[in-house]
């Protein structure tokens, strides 16, 4: 193969501030908002807990020009809102680094590389701790089983020396992150979650070292090297597993992000294919995609026939066939054959990029329950330190060595991590599972609201029925063939997102491979009324035809005397054609309504359509409560009325025409592929066309809330039980280490069940 691999120099962001401050690099990790403001996504390094997240937030917000910073402890990502007029990114990057946390622009290769290096260091720390622990146990064993006088003093001392030598690498190397983060916190005059643990480790080491080298000293002659190495090992095991699990549960996001390949073969001017970086692609380029590769951009197939795996983008788990003239999506996988496509949109314009942007914003949001846990973290840590001091004082008469060990048990056994991880871990796992099932979560907070929903209100058009109605009949002016009328209408309708316009386009596309032979010029759309513009035959110089497409009133013609949705076409001479449309129910509408009822949820239908049509659809899917002829204001009023009765309402709509109603509901779903994702104002976005995603999402939300409650109850109960036990001196340090590691692990494992449960159901 003679393909040349060439990556542009800007493929990875250089770390220095100069590149960060180049506005051309900003879109690589964020996007512009109005008024010169930017929203950037960054990865925060060296963060373990909610307290860390707080610190980074505070450091970022202290920089003038940074308007807002949201840091998520579970996904280790931050969303920063800043003003380009007042500050450059290098300023707030530096501010966070000064607080002890490096920032890396998200969506960047470097972040992945650095995470791999961090993971490797963590594994290495764990191995050292584990190995030294085993050997220290060997040295400790004789002292436990020997009868008094059986071991000579020399032998005892030899074992202690050997233990001390092997404990050194554990304390100096394996415990490094605990000490570093505790020291960082102390320097900044604050309390972090690692402080109690680091303090505990230091105390045990000092007591045991004193016992080894100065057995007659005030700290006694007991040594605890075995306990020390053991609980360090358990803590590191817990943290290591936790990181892996967290990586996996929050990993739906990563799975999505890593879908677009780095390079692809592009057709060059001389007709050969050359491998270029995906960032160099432009609209109109022709590229070749081999089976097994992912499509790098949205485009139209111009050669070849294949099947594509769009599971992560639409929730459709079966491969879909794609032939010439059909669209493929960036991020979907080419499964069976080599194909060529012409690119229609790249980078931020692709549907894939919109999905990623949505997921990023969701994973950096902080649910209410998590904010609550953050608030109690600090007083909780102060309480732990106070309890440890109290323990030392109470036990002092029994000997300084033992008093300190009891204090150590208190320091180590408390587990604030479980408290702060309880909510975000579960919600992220759930959001990941839902994303795999084709439902995007816009706002994590909404999962909590959705779990308590007792009424679901459906919109009709585009929700219970398919996005686009079917073209049923065509009436047209004498001398014109129905096909020609459809061609004219499709040429206009192609420019609109309205479902009725799309029905005409689809009707044309079903019959013909090529686009209509007319060009639409200076087109105007009147929302809810119709389109108006000029049509000119391609390549002809004739006067453009002035046409209108839309409701009878819009076109200035008389409506057909039949009770069905209809659309009219008129030109300068009056009526041209009328199109009669029929609505198609979604295949799984009735099943979805039945599933909702089985969940004990009341189902209603609110439609802007005529009452008779709404009634008919409702009867077919099994909804008893119907209201037709609703304006958007009527819908809003009905919704508020329901809410005033104390009902928790979820609204399901197409996300485009019923924005205010969706926003007012407790939880909202937007359905349908027709809507550009960025415009959909809903908490949940159903990417495929399966209505059954709604009851599934509700079931998932209920499970999520249950798991969050279990987690919080566990974290609170564990701490409430173990601290008194440690105070009473019943918990040796090693048991405390197991307790803490197991507690935070249990919380993350419990959350991981959410990812699995949905996977099994899907």
């Amino acid at each position, binding site marked *: 193969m003679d393909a040349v691999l060439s990556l542009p120099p800007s493929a990875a962001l250089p770390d220095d501030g100069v590149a960060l401050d180049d506005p051309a690099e900003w879109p690589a990790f964020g996007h512009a908002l109005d008024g010169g403001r930017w929203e950037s996504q960054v990865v925060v390094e060296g963060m373990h807990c909610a307290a860390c997240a707080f610190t980074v937030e505070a450091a970022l917000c202290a920089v003038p020009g940074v308007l807002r910073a949201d840091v998520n402890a579970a996904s280790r990502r931050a969303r920063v809102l800043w003003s380009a007029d007042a500050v450059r990114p290098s300023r707030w990057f530096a501010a966070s680094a000064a607080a002890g946390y490096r920032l890396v622009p998200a969506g960047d290769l470097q972040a992945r590389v650095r995470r*791999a290096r961090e*993971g*490797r260091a963590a*594994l*290495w720390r764990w*191995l*050292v701790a584990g*190995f*030294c622990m085993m*050997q220290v146990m*060997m*040295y400790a064993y004789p002292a436990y089983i020997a009868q008094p006088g059986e071991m*000579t003093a020399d*032998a005892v001392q*030899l*074992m202690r020396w*050997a233990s001390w*030598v*092997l404990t050194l*690498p554990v304390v100096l190397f394996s415990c490094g992150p605990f000490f570093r983060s505790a020291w960082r916190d102390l320097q900044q005059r604050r309390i972090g979650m690692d402080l109690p643990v680091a303090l505990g480790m230091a105390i045990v080491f000092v007591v045991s070292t004193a016992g080894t080298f100065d057995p007659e000293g005030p700290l006694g002659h007991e040594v605890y090297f075995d306990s020390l190495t053991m609980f360090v090992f358990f803590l590191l095991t817990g943290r290591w597993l936790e990181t892996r699990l967290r990586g996996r549960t929050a990993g739906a996001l990563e799975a999505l992000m890593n879908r677009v390949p780095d390079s692809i073969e592009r057709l060059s001017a001389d007709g050969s294919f050359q491998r270029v970086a995906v960032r160099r692609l432009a609209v109109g380029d022709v590229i070749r995609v081999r089976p097994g590769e992912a499509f790098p951009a949205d485009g139209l197939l111009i050669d070849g026939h294949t099947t594509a795996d769009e599971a992560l983008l639409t929730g459709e788990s079966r491969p879909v066939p794609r032939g010439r003239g059909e669209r493929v999506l960036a991020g979907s996988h080419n499964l069976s054959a080599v194909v060529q496509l012409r690119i229609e949109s790249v980078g931020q314009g692709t549907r894939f990029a919109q999905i990623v942007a949505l997921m990023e914003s969701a994973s950096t949001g902080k649910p209410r329950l998590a904010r609550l846990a953050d608030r109690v973290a600090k007083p909780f840590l102060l309480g732990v330190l106070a309890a440890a001091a109290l323990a030392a004082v109470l036990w002092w008469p029994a000997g300084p060595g033992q008093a300190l060990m009891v204090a150590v048990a208190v320091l180590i056994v408390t587990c604030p991590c479980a408290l702060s991880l309880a909510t975000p871990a579960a919600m992220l796992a759930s959001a990941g599972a839902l994303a795999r099932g084709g439902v995007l979560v816009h706002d994590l907070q909404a999962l909590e609201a959705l779990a308590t929903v007792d009424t679901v209100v459906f919109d009709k058009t585009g929700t219970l029925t398919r996005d686009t109605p079917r073209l049923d009949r065509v009436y047209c002016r004498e001398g014109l063939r129905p096909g020609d009328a459809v061609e004219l209408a499709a040429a206009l309708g192609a420019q609109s997102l309205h479902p009725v316009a799309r029905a005409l386009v689809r009707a044309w596309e079903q019959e013909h491979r090529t686009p209509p032979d007319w060009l639409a010029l200076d087109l105007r759309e009147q929302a809810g009324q119709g389109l108006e513009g000029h049509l000119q035959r391609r390549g002809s110089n004739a006067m453009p035809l002035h046409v209108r497409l839309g409701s009878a009133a819009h076109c200035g013609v008389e409506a057909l005397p039949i009770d069905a949705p209809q659309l009219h076409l008129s030109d300068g001479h009056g009526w041209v054609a009328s199109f009669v449309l029929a609505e198609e129910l979604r295949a799984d509408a009735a099943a979805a309504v039945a599933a909702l009822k089985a969940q004990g949820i009341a189902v209603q239908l609110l439609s802007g359509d005529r009452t008779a049509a709404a009634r008919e659809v409702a009867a077919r899917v099994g909804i008893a409560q119907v209201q037709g002829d609703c304006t958007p204001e009527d819908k809003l009023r009905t919704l508020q009325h329901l809410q005033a009765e104390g009902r928790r309402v979820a609204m399901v709509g197409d996300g485009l025409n019923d924005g205010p109603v969706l926003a007012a509901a407790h939880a909202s779903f937007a359905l349908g592929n027709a809507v550009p994702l960025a415009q959909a104002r809903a908490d949940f976005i159903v990417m495929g066309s399966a209505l059954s995603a709604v009851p599934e999402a509700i079931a998932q939300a209920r499970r999520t809330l249950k798991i969050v409650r279990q987690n919080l109850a566990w974290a609170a109960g564990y701490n409430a039980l173990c601290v008194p036990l440690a105070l009473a001196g019943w918990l040796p340090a090693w048991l405390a280490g197991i307790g803490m590691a197991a507690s935070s692990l249990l919380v993350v494992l419990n959350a991981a069940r959410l990812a699995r449960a949905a996977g099994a159901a899907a």
Partner: protein
Amino acid sequence: MDILFLLVPFSVVLVLVILGGLWWAVDRGQFEDVDREGERILNND
């Protein structure tokens, strides 16, 4: 019993040597992706 005074320091040295070997393995990325090696036989190329 005197042999202990040789064997115990020797065991300490041995542990440090083994740790050195592990460091070499981790540093070369052998534990980066433990699933990948198992899946490799399923790959044709």
